[in-house]
């Protein structure tokens, strides 16, 4: 066995170990922190699967932004965990649940080991979408997202907007239109302020770079947008800037800009290029990059507003 095999097995054990920790941890907050760590280790597994684009997304969204969301929620819910622990199921039920789960995972493993060969693949079509007429993108993943399955990608942005609407609508009636509750303490630590001032500009440039380079190399609108959202959150935690009111017009325009531009180009494609979401081959790449630019904006705003939560007003129930 080569050294890489040992590293792969060690990484697999590490991921499972951290996952077990999230499940068995006694403390709610410990479980939440373990989950954020788990997301980062999972990104390493994705690299081993020749999926750097997924690894970037997993590290930025699955580990990073989800981590912020859950840690913030875990801190606010820490008190609620005390009296709910009385409802822990009996040992018999826990053993039964463990048996069912092991059985399920076992069947899944047998299925994985007995998948048919040769494996079905859409790689030729995707490669054609990347290099064929109407694209000219070096990154096949971006070609799939923006050209081969563009309608899915557009609808996914709509899902993000629906989630933001859902989060906003669980706020108190009296708070409607106000800004969400602030991220950080009223007087942030000096170290945090310094970190935000030093990190946010650099991180924002890296975010733009990941978006721009995504046409030809690993990266793209999701990863870049998530990084920009993270930098916005760092600045919010240090109270360098404040969250916008949710009825601000620019905020709502920024939220819908991505899918709106995407849909407009798609409809124009139906008239100019012959089919819905087809790009005229002469200027497909600039068109795709400009759609992605608006998508980065919408993704960054939507992710931040999803973490920020519903509008908040002091005293409102």
């Amino acid at each position, binding site marked *: 066995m080569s050294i890489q095999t040992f590293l792969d097995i060690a990484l*697999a054990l590490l991921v499972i170990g951290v996952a077990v920790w999230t499940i068995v941890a006694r403390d709610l907050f410990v479980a939440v922190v373990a*989950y954020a760590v*788990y997301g980062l280790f999972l990104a390493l597994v994705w690299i081993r699967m020749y999926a750097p684009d997924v690894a970037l997304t997993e590290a930025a969204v699955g580990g990073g932004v989800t981590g912020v969301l*859950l840690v913030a929620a875990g801190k606010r*819910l820490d008190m609620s965990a005390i009296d709910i*622990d009385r409802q822990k199921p009996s040992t018999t039920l826990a053993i039964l649940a463990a048996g069912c789960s092991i059985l399920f995972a076992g069947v899944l493993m047998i299925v994985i080991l007995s998948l048919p060969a040769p494996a079905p*693949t859409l790689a030729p079509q995707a490669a054609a979408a990347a290099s064929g007429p109407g694209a000219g993108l070096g990154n096949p993943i971006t070609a799939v997202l923006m050209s081969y399955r563009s309608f899915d990608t557009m609808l996914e942005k709509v899902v993000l907007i629906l989630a933001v609407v859902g989060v906003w609508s669980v706020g108190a009636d009296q708070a409607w239109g106000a800004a969400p509750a602030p991220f950080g303490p009223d007087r942030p630590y000096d170290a945090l302020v310094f970190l935000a001032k030093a990190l946010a500009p650099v991180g924002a440039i890296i975010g733009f770079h990941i978006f721009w380079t995504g046409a030809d190399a690993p990266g793209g609108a999701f990863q870049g947008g998530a990084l920009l959202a993270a930098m916005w959150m760092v600045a919010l935690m240090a109270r360098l800037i404040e969250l916008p009111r949710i009825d601000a017009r620019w905020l709502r325009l920024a939220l819908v800009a991505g899918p709106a531009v995407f849909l407009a180009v798609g409809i124009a494609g139906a008239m100019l290029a012959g089919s819905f979401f087809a790009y005229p081959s002469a200027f497909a790449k600039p068109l795709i990059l400009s759609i992605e630019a608006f998508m980065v904006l919408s993704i960054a705003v939507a992710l931040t507003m999803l973490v920020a939560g519903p509008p908040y007003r002091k005293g409102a*129930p």
Partner: protein
Amino acid sequence: MTPAVLAALVGAALVGLGLYGLIVHPHPLRKLLAFNLVGSGAFLVFGMVARRGAAAGLAFDPVPQAMVITGIVVAFAASALAVALVLRLFATSGRVDLDPRVWTRPDDDSSTS
């Protein structure tokens, strides 16, 4: 065994682990963590499918990988909505029970407020 198959087996184990957590943990935030474990395990299985589909000069099939990227973002959006609902439940009632019997117990005055 290739790294991809190993990762898919890890994914299967994660699905089982998440399923167990989903059943035994009464706290909704713990259930959400467990549910996310199930989701990421399913994504890993998808990653192996992408690796198996290597063809046309690519080391992987980009279609399943693109779907996983979409899936990660949608899973985050769903988690954010779930967190908002749990926090709202806690803010209005001071508790987060999902067990309906807790809310209808006659000596429990929080169910009427």
